[in-house]
């Protein structure tokens, strides 16, 4: 085994401590309203990690992530009503199905870069939005689409997470596994191939890297992560609405990944907090939640002008500077 795979960096240790502390303390201190908000935020943090990893490791802009979450949610709901399998099985199958969709999306997109790739993924998100709006999400009906007229049939939540507190913990565990999976990939051969591809596709090809394979693999990973996130969202609410998976949400998710800092786990957390916790906070204060969009815009300008590594990059730089000064003092 590659020994570097299990090496814990300071940032990684901080991430694991953060996840453990969130797992233990968040459900203990949060009221029901904030439990719902933080559950949603944790789900989207996981989805953001997929889109951020593609941008940070390969420079690929994917504007389909929320649409892919919709696919994961759709598969989860369909399987829930089709067979009596545990939620975990449905979630894994949903992640695999969405991974395949990610691969299919990758094939035409691979010939493009930069703006054109972003546009292709945006068009895919638009197509998914129309599909969801037209066929809706399964609600216990018959046939391929599984939609019946009238009320939704009951949804089976994970056996381990029947209460809101347990479900938040469940989501934190799955999201942490998602982050670790991406980090594991980064440390193994795919990560080295991605680093070479990001530097120069021609150089990567010359070095014998199968560019098509590893780009497709990256799309697949982001898809699987999005699919699992969609499954968790379906598990949280027991149903899904097409309004959640509009293409504009994918754009917003990517923009916030940049604001948070695409290279870092903390960036995904910050992006998810901005995406879901900030509107909840504004709502609690009695302020129109649309104000969040203004704040997002300001955050994006801030990231573009002064913080290419996002807010998380600035925080890690600050910590590094402080540690450096502290070290000098000790010296």
């Amino acid at each position, binding site marked *: 085994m590659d020994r570097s795979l299990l090496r814990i960096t300071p940032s990684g240790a901080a991430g694991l401590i953060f996840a453990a502390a969130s797992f233990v303390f968040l459900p203990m201190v949060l009221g029901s309203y904030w*439990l719902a908000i933080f559950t949603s935020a944790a789900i989207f943090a996981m989805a953001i990690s997929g889109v951020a990893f593609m941008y940070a490791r390969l420079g690929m802009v994917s504007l389909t992530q929320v649409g892919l979450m919709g696919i994961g949610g759709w598969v989860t709901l369909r399987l829930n009503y089709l067979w009596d399998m545990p939620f975990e099985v449905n979630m894994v199958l949903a992640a695999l199905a969405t991974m395949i969709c990610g691969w299919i999306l990758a094939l035409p997109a691979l010939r493009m870069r930069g703006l054109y790739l972003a546009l292709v993924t945006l068009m895919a998100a638009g197509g998914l939005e129309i599909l969801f709006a037209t066929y809706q999400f399964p609600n216990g009906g018959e046939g391929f689409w599984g*939609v*019946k*007229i009238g009320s939704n049939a*009951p949804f089976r939540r994970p056996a381990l997470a029947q209460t809101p507190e347990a479900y938040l913990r469940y989501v934190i565990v799955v999201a942490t596994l998602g982050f670790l999976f991406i980090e594991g990939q980064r440390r193994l051969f795919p990560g080295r191939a991605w680093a070479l591809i990001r530097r120069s596709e021609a150089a990567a090809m010359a070095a014998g890297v199968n560019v098509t394979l590893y780009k497709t693999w990256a799309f697949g990973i982001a898809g699987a992560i999005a699919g699992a996130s969609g499954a968790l969202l379906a598990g949280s609410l027991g*149903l899904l609405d097409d309004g959640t998976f509009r293409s504009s949400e994918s754009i917003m998710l990517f923009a916030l990944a940049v604001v948070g800092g695409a290279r870092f786990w903390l960036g995904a957390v910050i992006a998810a907090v901005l995406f879901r916790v900030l509107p909840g906070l504004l709502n609690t204060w009695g302020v129109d939640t649309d104000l969040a969009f203004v704040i997002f815009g300001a955050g994006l300008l801030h990231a573009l002008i002064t913080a290419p590594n996002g807010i998380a990059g600035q925080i890690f730089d600050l910590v590094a500077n402080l540690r450096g000064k502290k070290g000098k003092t000790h010296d």
Partner: protein
Amino acid sequence: MKLKNGLAGAIALGLAFFAGAAFAAPNCGANTGQAATGAPIVVGGIYSNGAPGDWSSSTDAAAAYFACVNANGGINGRPVEYLVEDDQWNPEAASAAAAKLVTDKKAVAMVGNGSFIEMAVNAQTYVDQGIMAMASACAISECFETPNLVSTNQGPLASNLGAAQYAQEELGSKNVACIGLNIPNNGIWACQAVIDYMTSKGGTGSMAMLNPGAPDVNSALLEAVASGADTILLNLPAGLALAVLKAAQEQDLRDSYTWIAPTPLYDLSVPDAVGDYWHGKIWVNAELAPINQGGADGQNWLAVLDAFGKAEDPRDTFSQAGYLSAQFFVKAMMEMDPAQLDDRAAVTAAIKAIKGYSSDLMCGPYYVGDEPYHQPNHAGQMVKVVAGGFEVVRGCYEYDSAYFDRHKAVEKALGLN
């Protein structure tokens, strides 16, 4: 001179206001005229405000009624603290709103809810938490087919059936095209009921669905036209229905079809909004009484809104329904043991025990009961849009559909019919 005129006008307006207030003093709860000062009783309400419509009319009216109750002795001296959340037509926000009101704020009941989404997300939460939701602008099937939700309004299925029944019986409709939102538990559910009804009467029907996120009203209208229908039913929120009518006016389709609608078009602003072109050509089902019908409760609703609501609060059926839900809730609470007003289980039992409440705003009695389905309101009136308002073309009538058989059986068992 201008100043003098302005002053005179202001005095006249002031006198008119006081005169109006004297003639239409609202009557709420204990009606003591004394403000309630005890510990507040927490009540929640959830509404939707987001594309494609604002569904806050019912919670606005419920808030006005509770404010009136609080100014008139409250419930056994205790004011109602009415907390309202917007679900933004977003399931996550709807779930968070219910969590906040039901679990964090410990509301004893939900009153006045109006939404397309929250009832689907929260129906099971209401069961699990043992809380009753006395909704008022319910637009989806869960409002009428789950144990802890009861709505004062009829919902699109019943109101559609009322409109289609009138059109079939009085206007000679044989083929109805229903334009609705592409939501399985809303537009499809309610439009399918119309198709089934028309089929049962030897006619036929079809549906044209709109994407609620990006509604293309022209396409839906053309789809309805292409169906070969002789009648077009606008099963939509008022704003979207007006957009369809505008598109139809541009194509001069008015006289080619019979135009009918469920209750969302029954809003005082609609006759002016549609303009002369449509006057006398649109028939609307009113789930509750006509707005200026003159009954004591109908007048009290307007007086409560004038005195305790905002000027911009809509005066529509959903506002009437919000007022009624709040009124019925307060009445049930005032009949309870005062020591149990904070006990959610006792409040839920009291709401489920409601039987035979009446109002001149409703065609029949209001009751709740302990069934896994509730539809106390299944009779309405039919009005026609005319210049300056609405004209009643058919008074209270029961809807002729097998869908209500089980409700009528419950009413019979309760001794209500």
